[in-house]
């Protein structure tokens, strides 16, 4: 067996371990405080290095510091959708019980980070480009990503049966995933106002390392923050579903009429 195949089988086995919601709740409960703590430490370090200890750009001045918030938020917006895409595959192909929960939990978080990226980018655009908004390929495709997130959240809300809603949202997520490569390559395929790729490039980053280190710290902090938020949201959703099923069981029991003893009429 090829090593990749073996690795894939290991990952799938590990994922299937967490199909049991109780085990998931236990493990995520143990992991979460560490995630929050690590995210907090990296955030403090990154914010200190980015806003206090790093130099200003020769052209942009102090406004370059928005990069330390805007770029991680944009990266997370795309990673959030990637998480939803993988969860959707897990839901449709593998019928993993927690895949639905994962996709539902990730949607509002991804939408929030997308909005944050759009707003911080807009604030950054005013001093550097002279405009809050431009209809270039990168910004437009990012706006489409935001609409896709909103559509997913609306679909989850509109269908009452949660497992049906999960599969419908999974189909929509997979259809919309074509947008992600479009976003990434939009600065390559079109002449855009938004700058080209300077970090995730085949030749390596083109940003000076004095800017790159705070950026990586902030990306790490945001990524851990996403996972912490995602796990928390998944736990809330599992608890919400447990409450809903307990309520419906209680309603069922209350609806069963008391037994009429034999020999009595009406």
């Amino acid at each position, binding site marked *: 067996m090829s090593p990749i195949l073996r690795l894939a089988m290991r990952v799938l086995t590990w994922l299937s371990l967490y199909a049991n919601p109780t085990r998931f709740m236990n493990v995520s409960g143990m992991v979460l405080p560490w995630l929050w703590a690590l995210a907090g430490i990296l955030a403090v370090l990154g914010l200190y290095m980015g806003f206090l200890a790093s130099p200003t750009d020769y052209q942009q001045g102090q406004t370059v510091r928005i990069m330390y918030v805007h770029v991680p938020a944009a990266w997370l917006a795309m990673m959030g959708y990637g998480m939803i895409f993988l969860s959707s595959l897990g839901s449709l192909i593998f019928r993993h019980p927690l895949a639905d929960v994962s996709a539902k939990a990730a949607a509002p978080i991804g939408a929030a980070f997308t909005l944050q990226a759009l707003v911080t980018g807009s604030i950054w655009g005013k001093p550097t480009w002279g405009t809050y908004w431009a209809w270039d390929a990168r910004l*437009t495709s990012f706006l489409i990503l935001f609409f*896709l997130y909103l*559509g997913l959240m*609306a679909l989850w809300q509109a*269908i009452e049966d949660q497992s049906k809603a999960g599969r419908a949202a999974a*189909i929509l997520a997979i259809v919309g995933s074509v947008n992600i490569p479009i976003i990434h390559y939009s600065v390559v395929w079109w002449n855009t106002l938004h700058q080209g790729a300077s970090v995730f490039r085949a030749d390596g980053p083109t940003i000076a390392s004095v800017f790159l280190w705070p950026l990586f710290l902030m990306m790490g902090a945001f990524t851990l923050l996403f996972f912490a938020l995602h796990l928390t949201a998944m736990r809330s959703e599992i608890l919400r579903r447990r409450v809903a099923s307990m309520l419906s069981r209680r309603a069922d029991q209350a609806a069963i009429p008391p037994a009429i003893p034999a020999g009595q009429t009406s």
Partner: protein
Amino acid sequence: MMAPFLELLTRDVRLALREGGAIGTALGFYLIVVAILPLGLGPDLNLLSRIAPGILWVALLLSALLSADRIFHADHEDGTLEALSLGPLPLELVAAAKAIAHWLTTALPLALMAPLLGLMLNMEISAYPPLVGTMLVGTPAISFIGSIGAGLTLGLRRGGLLLSLLVLPLFIPVLVFGVGTISAILAGPGGFWAPLAILAAFSVAAIVLAPLATAAALRLHL
């Protein structure tokens, strides 16, 4: 496989033509939207003629969306969809036949009506052929992507509104490249093949891939 497919297609087209109301409503909506836009934008004919292709494209998208939720609605309500899913045609081909029927009975008439509405917007004569051409190339994508939304929102209250929210972001590339082709043609000879080819690629990809997603969505509701 061809005979049941064509039968389903002709059945849907015949039903839509007999019913008449849906096609008429979509065309009427197109007419009214294009008519009130100059009232909002001001009667400056120069401005209107510059933005006419864009207005006509956007209004076409909205009008096509209006009728998208009826693609499966009637058959789902009376159980025909279940019967179709048990029949000789795979559900993907059922979805494809219904999307083609929607294109023939809604999107195509809208595209053919666009030049008449271009008169109201003082569109320049040289823009008429590119307008109709890009609409003919792009409307199959609209019908097929609309059918995905129709399948996902089947049976929901206010499903039509949700369908619009879900499907319009997926229409944006069609809109961008459709209007881009028209601008490229009007700007000068040559150079329009790129956006036109990408528009055609979207349509072809939608025709091939959308029925898969639509069928998956229909199976949810059956």
